[in-house]
């Protein structure tokens, strides 16, 4: 198989009509020791543009520079060279944060607060009036499904619950740009699916999402464009379907085709010069199977799930 690639530091999506929200120009980060000696090159010079309404994925193994890039865009660390612009302002400009939501890799929240207090606190940081804080907090707690646990201190939360309140705090200001660092980390498959649905929902509401992950399926499912980083260097950048498309293989999917038609189709393909023909039933993903089992169990408590009967297409 041969995948279409867009190697190198080529920036910009295919559809360049959208406003550029995030821009990295020759952005690099070198961690130094006390004496100023180079300790680690965390990010090699990076050029990047992310446009409004995109879901952009930063993909790479651990230590590849995803989180460093995100921290540079957030102004949490300072670039060694180059510049990071968010909404046209320097990333270190605090005023840009009015329009940003951020979910860190681990949900670093104040564990002595409960969910309501947490959202109220972060709402205050956006200078929101009390009524708006209350309204937003109630809506977000309901959205992330923590209604019953909103009075519990975060130290009593499971990792998944902490992640949920983390996403709620990231959205407290209804941000235009949401940065999610490993958003599905620590979530069970249902939580993962809900997170991915949420990301897609954010896009549908015109938000721009930047997410980093080393879970390839998550990125593939939701991202419009991805940047693949490895050892602090940008290796691939482009639209997901472009990067994943196998150009020399044709795939036809249909439902309701009788077994008898297989031989006829195989013959037709061979006649047109097609080789290595495979005809069969596709498999679903383990995630889909799991979700179907859970849904079925919840619909018919106490009975064995029908998912074991095998998934059906359509």
């Amino acid at each position, binding site marked *: 198989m041969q995948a279409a690639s867009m190697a190198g530091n080529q920036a910009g999506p295919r559809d360049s009509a959208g406003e550029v929200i995030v821009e990295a120009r020759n952005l690099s980060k070198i961690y130094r020791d006390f004496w*100023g000696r180079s300790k680690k090159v965390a990010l090699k010079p990076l050029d990047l543009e992310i446009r409004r309404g995109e879901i952009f994925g930063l993909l790479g193994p651990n230590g590849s520079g995803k989180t460093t890039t995100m921290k540079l865009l957030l102004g949490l660390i300072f670039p060694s060279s180059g510049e990071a612009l968010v909404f046209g302002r320097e990333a270190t400009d605090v005023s840009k944060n009015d329009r940003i939501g951020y979910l860190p890799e681990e949900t670093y929240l104040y564990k002595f607060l409960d969910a309501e207090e947490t959202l109220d606190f972060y709402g205050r940081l956006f200078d929101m009036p009390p009524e708006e804080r209350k309204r937003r907090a109630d809506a977000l707690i309901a959205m992330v499904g923590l209604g019953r646990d909103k009075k519990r201190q975060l130290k009593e939360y499971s990792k998944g619950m902490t992640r949920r309140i983390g996403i709620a705090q990231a959205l407290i200001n209804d941000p235009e740009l949401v940065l999610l660092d490993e958003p599905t980390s620590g979530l069970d498959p249902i939580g993962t699916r809900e997170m991915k649905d949420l990301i897609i929902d954010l896009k549908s509401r015109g938000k721009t999402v930047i997410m980093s992950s080393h879970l390839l399926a998550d990125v593939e499912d939701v991202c419009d464009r991805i940047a693949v980083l490895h050892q602090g260097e940008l290796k691939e950048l482009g639209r997901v379907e472009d990067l994943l498309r196998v150009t020399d293989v044709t795939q036809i999917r249909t439902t309701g085709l009788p077994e008898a038609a297989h031989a006829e189709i195989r013959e037709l393909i061979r006649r047109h010069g097609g080789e290595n023909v495979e005809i069969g039933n596709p498999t679903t993903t383990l995630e889909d199977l799991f979700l179907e089992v859970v849904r079925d169990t919840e619909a018919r408590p106490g009975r064995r799930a029908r998912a074991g009967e095998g998934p059906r297409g359509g």
Partner: protein
Amino acid sequence: MVLEEEIPKFADWIGPALVSYLFATGILAVVIAAVAWLVQSVLCGPLAAGDRVYRGVLSGIADLASMSPRRIWALARLAIQESLRRNVVVVLGLFALIVVFAGWFLDPTSVNPGRLYLGFILSATNMLVCLVVLILSVFSLPADIKAKAIQTVTTKPVRTGEIVLGRMLGFATVGTVLLALMGLVGWAFVVRSVRHGHTIEAADIVEIKAEDGAITGSEGRTSLDRGHRHRVEFAADGSGRTDTVQGHRHSITTSGESGSLRYEVGPPEGLLEARKPLRGRLRFLDREGRPSTKGISVGAEWSYRQYIEGGSLAAAIWTFSDISEGQFPEGLPLEMIVRVFRTYKGDIEKGIAGSVRVRNPTTGLQSDPFYFTAKEFTIDSLLLPRTLAATTADGGTRQVDLFRDIVSDGRVEVVLQCLEPAQYFGVAQADFYLRQGDGSFAANYAKSCLGIWFSMLLMTALGVMFSTFLAGPVALLATLSVVLVGQFREFIQRLFESQVSGDSSIVPGGGPIESLYRIVTQASITVDLDPSPAVSAMKTLDTFLLAPMRLGAGVFPSLSSLGTGDFLAGGFDIPADLLLAHGAETFGYLLAFFIVGAFCLRAREVAA
């Protein structure tokens, strides 16, 4: 009480103080900018460094200007919640425990139990409150940075100034509440501890008869309570009062018929007071009666008090100004603290006799002397009445009016002399004063708590400032170092002066290296070391070591100087001018610490 320096009027003090402050902060700002430029120069070259520092300063100022009260309060509330989570209220229990058991180790028979209790309570309150806010403030921000919770805050539209100020405000609020509660408990403790009564049995009272057999009054003693008893004297009309013991006295009311008299002893008076003194300027006459700027040194290392020789023309003269008849209609209520230096023991139970006269500073007309016996460690009171006896030039006596004949343009002189040859009186300028009236002791106690509050605010601000760029334990040490240098700033200034000038009489013993050398070699600090290249090198090194300490001593605050416990315990009203000056000084430091903290946090990569 000791008052080494005159308290200036706030209006006179604030102008020069503001100029000094702006000068010092200006220099500090330039030094910090220069250091920042040097560090950046190493990383990115001098031009880029200049640009970074310039832009950093500009955007930092813009950030400070755009701070939001709501965000600051949100962060302050967070600091308060964090403090509560750390069970800061436990310190209240500790304080209560200290108060409960204080009675075990505080001696109620001390010379002045009021002073003892007040000193103890104020010290305990000061120490606990400052310690709590110090620990809270130095560990909070580093803990947030370590736990990365700061990342969810700094990615919100939060200015670093808001983070710093919010923390300072939050911990200061916690400290304020603790101080208020401890202050109330302490108040109750002191009032309850000093309150006591005595009883008088009729059998303990004997009549005083004149030579002609007429009864002029009666005298006796009270019961022994709280480790002391009083002598009592009754006038012929039955009114009585006790003598002053342990800094207080009691008034006594008598009721009933002769033969079955009942005595009721009132509450202690003079223990919890807030005297408002009007102080004068002190000058001396030597033993020949010639003007002198100083009295005699009796060899005490602390030269606060100067001594006058007894049985000579030596005198201490206070000139009081702004005296008016309306202010003192009954006469001049003089109060005196006179120390005694004996060159021979004499009758140790008996005080040393002295005299006080009032004198017209213009005409020299003076009253006949009022004789008194100086008692150590107590404040002697003397009412200089309206009508005074004065000796005329021909040796006769005439009556003069205090305000008409003695006070001139609102000025009057009070002349103190020691009457016993070879004994000495020791006095300082603050030791003689006219008692203008009394303030409320409760208000004075609150003012004293205000002094602790200032210290607590500075401690909080220092802790938070250091925690913006240092790890918790290091920030703790740095804060304590600053407090320590501030505590000994006068000594360090004199030590540096001694080191630079080479005059070892200012501070004998030399700097840290020389001191260490003297300890090891057991060389006396009063003996100069033999000149040698090694000694020169040691002294030069000491000068270099002392230079930053001297700089710090000139800049760092002295928390002890903000304390006004001496006034309260000594029974003096804390002057408003002093409080205003302390308030302004505290605010100045807070502002500087806040700005430094905000810029340091801004320059820091919180997620590195």
